[in-house]
C-alpha cells in the first residue's frame, strides 16, 4: 500500500487584489475584489515506502503548498489525501508524530535556547525512549558534526550549522516520512554534501521515505530515483530522473574564454564541422550550445584547446528550471501519471 496517496488534491488561495491609485484604494474600502490563486490544482500522487522523491518545479509552482498539505498544516480545498492511512489535517496530532519536516527558510528549534536544550525538549515532546535518543544523538553528532554546536543558542548559528541541527532535530524521533523543503538553500558545497550523505544513509538504514523539494539539480541527481514535477499547480512529470533528461532535449552550453580576441568568422570556420549554436558574448567569450549526444564533447574540447589560447572552459548543464520550462512549453513528455 502506498505510504502517501493523493487524488486530485487542490489548494486554492483567495488573494485580495488592490486596485491602483487613490481612487482604487477608496473603491477597495467599499468592495474588495479577490483573485483565486490555484496554488495546487488537482494533482495525483502515489508514493511507496522507502522512496526518495525529488519534488521540483519553478518558483511559485506549488511545491511548498503541497508539502504543507501533506504535513497537515494546510487544509486542502478539494481532493483526497491519505498519509499512512491518516488524513493529515484531521488527524494532525497523530500524523505529525510520525513525520519529520525541515523548511529550509525556517527553524523548528527555539531561537533563544541552546541546540541541546531544544533536542531534549523534542525528546520529551515525541516521547522518545531515553536510550534510543542518546544513541541517535550520538550518531547524528558524528555524521553531521554537531559536537561543537550543541551548546550554542540557535540564533547564533550560521545557516549551514543551523540546517545541520534542524535536520538532526527532524529525525530524532525516527519518522517514517521526512519532508524537506529546500534543505540545501544557501549552503556551501561541503555542507550540502554532508546533508545529502546523511539523508541517503537515513533512507537506507531506516527505510525513511523522503520527499525533497529543491532548485538544485545536483540534490536530485545524488539522491532521487524518482522525480515529480509541478508547474502552476499541475503535475507535469512523474517518473525517473534519467528518463526525464533523455526525453527533454535541452542544449548544454560550453563557455569558452580566450586570452586573445577572436573574430566571428574565424570561430565559424573552426567549428564548421560541429552542429553548434555559436554566440559571441564578447570577443573573448563564446557560448557554444549543442544537444547532448549530437556532439563529441571531448573531441570538441580538444580542438578548442589545440587551436585557441584558452583561458577557461566551462560546461553548463541545463538547469532544472529550463527542463521544467521546456516540458511545460511542449506539454508533458508522455508518462505524467
Amino acid at each position: 500500500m502506498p505510504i502517501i496517496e493523493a487524488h486530485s488534491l487542490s489548494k486554492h488561495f483567495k488573494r485580495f487584489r488592490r486596485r491602483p491609485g487613490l481612487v482604487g484604494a477608496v473603491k477597495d474600502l467599499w468592495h474588495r475584489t479577490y483573485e483565486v490563486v490555484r496554488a495546487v490544482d488537482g494533482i495525483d500522487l502515489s508514493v511507496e515506502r522507502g522512496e526518495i522523491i525529488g519534488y521540483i518545479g519553478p518558483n511559485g509552482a506549488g511545491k511548498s503548498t503541497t508539502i504543507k498539505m501533506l504535513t497537515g498544516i494546510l487544509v486542502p480545498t478539494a481532493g483526497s489525501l491519505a498519509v499512512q492511512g491518516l488524513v493529515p489535517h484531521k488527524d494532525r496530532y497523530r500524523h505529525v508524530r510520525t513525520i519529520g519536516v525541515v523548511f529550509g527558510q525556517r527553524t523548528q528549534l527555539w531561537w533563544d535556547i541552546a541546540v541541546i536544550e531544544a533536542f531534549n525538549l523534542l525528546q520529551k515532546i515525541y516521547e522518545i525512549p531515553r536510550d534510543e535518543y542518546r544513541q541517535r544523538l550520538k550518531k547524528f553528532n558524528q555524521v553531521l558534526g554537531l559536537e561543537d554546536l550543541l551548546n550554542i543558542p540557535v540564533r547564533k548559528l550560521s545557516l549551514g550549522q543551523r540546517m545541520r541541527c534542524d535536520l538532526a532535530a527532524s529525525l530524532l524521533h525516527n519518522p517514517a516520512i521526512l519532508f524537506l523543503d529546500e534543505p540545501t538553500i544557501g549552503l556551501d558545497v561541503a555542507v550540502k554534501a554532508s546533508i545529502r550523505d546523511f539523508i541517503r544513509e537515513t533512507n537506507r538504514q531506516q527505510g525513511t521515505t523522503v520527499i525533497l523539494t529543491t532548485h538544485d539539480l545536483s540534490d536530485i541527481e545524488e539522491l532521487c530515483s524518482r522525480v515529480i514535477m509541478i508547474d502552476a499547480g499541475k503535475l507535469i512529470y512523474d517518473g525517473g530522473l534519467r528518463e526525464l533528461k533523455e526525453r527533454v532535449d535541452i542544449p548544454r552550453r560550453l563557455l569558452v574564454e580566450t586570452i586573445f580576441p577572436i573574430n566571428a568568422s574565424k570561430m565559424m570556420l573552426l567549428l564548421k564541422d560541429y552542429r553548434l549554436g555559436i554566440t559571441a558574448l564578447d570577443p573573448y567569450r563564446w557560448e557554444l550550445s549543442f544537444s547532448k549526444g549530437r556532439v563529441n564533447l571531448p573531441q570538441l574540447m580538444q580542438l578548442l584547446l589545440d587551436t585557441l589560447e584558452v583561458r577557461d572552459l566551462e560546461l553548463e548543464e541545463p538547469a532544472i528550471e529550463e527542463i521544467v520550462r521546456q516540458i511545460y512549453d511542449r506539454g508533458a513528455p508522455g508518462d505524467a501519471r
Partner: protein
Amino acid sequence: MKKVAKYWQFMRIGFIAYLAHRFQVLMNVLSYLLVIALNYFLWRAVFASRPVIAGFTMSQMMTYVVIGWSARTFFANRIDRMIGDAVRDGSIVMDLLKPTNFQLYHYFRSFGRAVFMFVFMTLPIIVVASLLFPIKPPSGRLGPYLFPLSVVLSFFLHAGISYLTGLMAFFTRNNEGVFRFKQMLVEVFSGVMIPISFFPAWVQGALFWLPFKYIAYVPLRIYLGMEPLSRVHQGVLLQVMWIIIIYAAGQLLWHFAIKRLEIQGG
C-alpha cells in the same frame, strides 16, 4: 510521568530563554520601582483627607500598591504577542508540526518565564520596596499559603486570556489593536491600578461576570486579609473555574483558528 517531564522541559526553555536578557530585566526593576513610588505618593495624597476609602485604609492601600505591582511582574506574559508574531511571520507552521498541546505549551513555557521573572524582578522589587515603603506581611493564618497559590492561579488565568487574544491573530490583520485592547482591559479591570471597590457599583456588578478581577484584585484582598475565610475559598475556586472555562474556550477556538490558517511565505 512523561507528560510532567514534557511540561517541565517547556518551563525550562521558557526560563533559559530569558537568561540572556537578565540585565535588561534588572533595568526593568528600576522602572517598576519608579512606578510603585509614583503610585505610592499618589495614593498617599488621595488618603490625606479621609482615613478609609472604598473599604481600604491607607496602610492597606500602600501594601496593595507595592504587592500588586510586584505581583504583576510575575503574572504578566507575552503569549498573545508570541502567537501574533508566529502567525505573521509564518513560523507558526513549526508549532503546528509538533505533536503537543499548543495551549499548554504556551502556558508552561510562559510559566518558566514567570519563574524567571519572579527571581529577577518580583523578589528584588519586593525587597527594595519593602525597605523604602511600609508594607504589611500577608495577613492571617492562611494568607501566607493561599496568597502564593492564588497568584499562581492568576498567572494561569492571565495566560489563558492572553492565549485567546493571541489566537485572534488568525482572524484579523490588526493584531496590535486587539492586543492593546486586551492589555487595557487587564490593566484597568484586574485591579492592579485601582482596587475594584473604587469603581461604581454597576461596574463592580459587571465585573463579577468577567474574569479580570480574579487576576489581581482577588489575590490582593486575600493577601490583605480583607475577606472572611469562606470568601477566600470562593475566590480561589472562582479563579480555578475561570481557568478551566478559558482553557476550554482556547481549545475550541484553536480548532477554528487552524482551519483558517493560510501561512504567509516560503
